[in-house]
């Protein structure tokens, strides 16, 4: 819908304006521990990542640690909320994500808790973990130790909560459920070919192509929710069927001809959910959690 494009445009303008005001950009989610302020050694980072990965395989919950130099001029709470709702960590449909943000030069830290974990880790518990496990170690400059102790306590609390069991096929492969444009285009392409030729044979060349175009338009509108894209797709499909009817009429003389042999390699849409960590995309962060300093 055009309106949706307008709002999208507005939001992007808003985002640009936000960037111009000097808000810290949300970093890329590169792993379970994103250390943008580079205070952890690579062994420490790997140890933490291993611990968090083990937590995800045993309970399904996704916990991510983000370390940035500073969140200024933004408050760490609103920065945390922005990061949480951009990354959306937590399983799809469960939404059990948790974010630990450390602003090293501000000397502030915060637990940002997704709504479905607010029961397991209420604000008071988050505050308690910060005050008793993390801050004292941070005060001595022991970042790795503080994070490690914090993760232990978080893990204990999450395990006490009755969450859905993680699926055996690897809970981190959230990519399988995301919408894949490549597949859609391939599907529509061949679908139009096959359905178009059948419909054309039943209804005749002109009406057949109009109907196929209309069907594609409705389908695309349902999937994408955009009339403009749908109209465009419908038009392309109609022209396509018309042309292919002319083409096949010619080729029909020569016999044989076009049998979608180009489908070769098939479906490997290159979803790189192999080694790394990917967000489940289900986390909804409503401002729960607690902040602290050291």
């Amino acid at each position, binding site marked *: *819908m*055009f309106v949706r494009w307008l709002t999208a445009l507005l939001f992007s303008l808003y985002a640009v304006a936000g960037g111009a005001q000097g808000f810290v950009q949300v970093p890329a989610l590169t792993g379970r521990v994103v250390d943008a302020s580079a205070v952890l050694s690579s062994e420490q980072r790997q140890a933490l990542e291993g611990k968090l990965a083990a937590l995800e395989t045993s309970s399904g919950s996704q916990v991510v640690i983000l370390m940035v130099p500073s969140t200024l001029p933004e408050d760490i709470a609103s920065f945390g909320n922005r990061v949480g709702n951009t990354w959306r960590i937590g399983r799809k449909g469960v939404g059990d994500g948790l974010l630990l943000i450390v602003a090293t030069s501000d000397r502030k830290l915060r637990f940002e808790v997704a709504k479905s974990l607010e029961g397991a880790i209420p604000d008071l518990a988050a505050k308690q973990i910060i005050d008793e496990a993390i801050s004292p170690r941070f005060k001595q400059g022991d970042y790795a130790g503080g994070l490690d102790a914090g993760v232990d306590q978080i893990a204990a609390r999450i395990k006490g909560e009755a969450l859905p069991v993680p699926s055996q096929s690897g809970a981190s492969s959230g990519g399988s459920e995301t919408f894949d444009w490549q597949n859609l285009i391939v599907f529509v392409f061949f679908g139009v070919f096959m359905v178009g030729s059948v419909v054309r044979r039943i209804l005749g060349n002109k009406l057949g192509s109009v109907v196929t175009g*209309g069907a594609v338009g409705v389908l695309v509108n349902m999937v994408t929710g955009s009339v403009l894209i749908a109209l465009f797709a419908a038009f392309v499909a109609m022209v396509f069927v018309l042309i292919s009817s002319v083409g096949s009429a010619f080729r029909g003389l020569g016999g044989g001809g076009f049998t979608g042999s180009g489908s070769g390699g098939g479906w490997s849409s290159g979803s790189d959910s192999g080694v790394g960590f990917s967000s489940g995309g289900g986390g909804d962060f*409503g*401002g*729960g959690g607690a902040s602290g300093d050291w």
Partner: protein
Amino acid sequence: MKTWILALLSAVALTGCGYNDFQRLDEQTASAWSEVLNQYQRRADLVPNIVATVKGEANFEQDTLTKVVEARAKATSIQVTPETLNNPEAFKKFQAAQGELSGALSRLMVVSERYPELKANKGFSDLRVQLEGTENRITVARNRYIQAVQEYNVLARSFPSNLTAMAFSYQTKPAFAVQNEAAITAPPVVDFNKK
């Protein structure tokens, strides 16, 4: 042939007029609004505990405390119904009352810094954490409401869906605004001589 084209056109026209989008966004704003109310209620429920704890502190500034109690009474006395959303006057009143409570509470928190015994009180620091969390949740809920309203209002005012809005008399919805716009835009006065 003609009937086919007509059917196709009318299908496109019906999805294009945005009626369904109006219904979807109306529901979305309503639920975002409920979340706002929910969080405001949570804050109002915290206030009596905070007041009781602070009262235990001898010679606490009575003025600050009374203001919080009054602001809470005022905020909770306003009846909020779903119709409040379509009544800018009532919406404004509601917003003003909640804003007053926000101001009184933050003043209370600032003043409490001056009382070391209160700061050391475990119950009070717990309440503080809860209040802070609630304020964060209020912020998020308000943001989501503003976004939902924005989407709805853009739909209600842009062509061609504004014709649908006219036909069914859908009004634009009010959003939260900053209360003290003038105070924020005024440059801060820094006076080093004051002491």
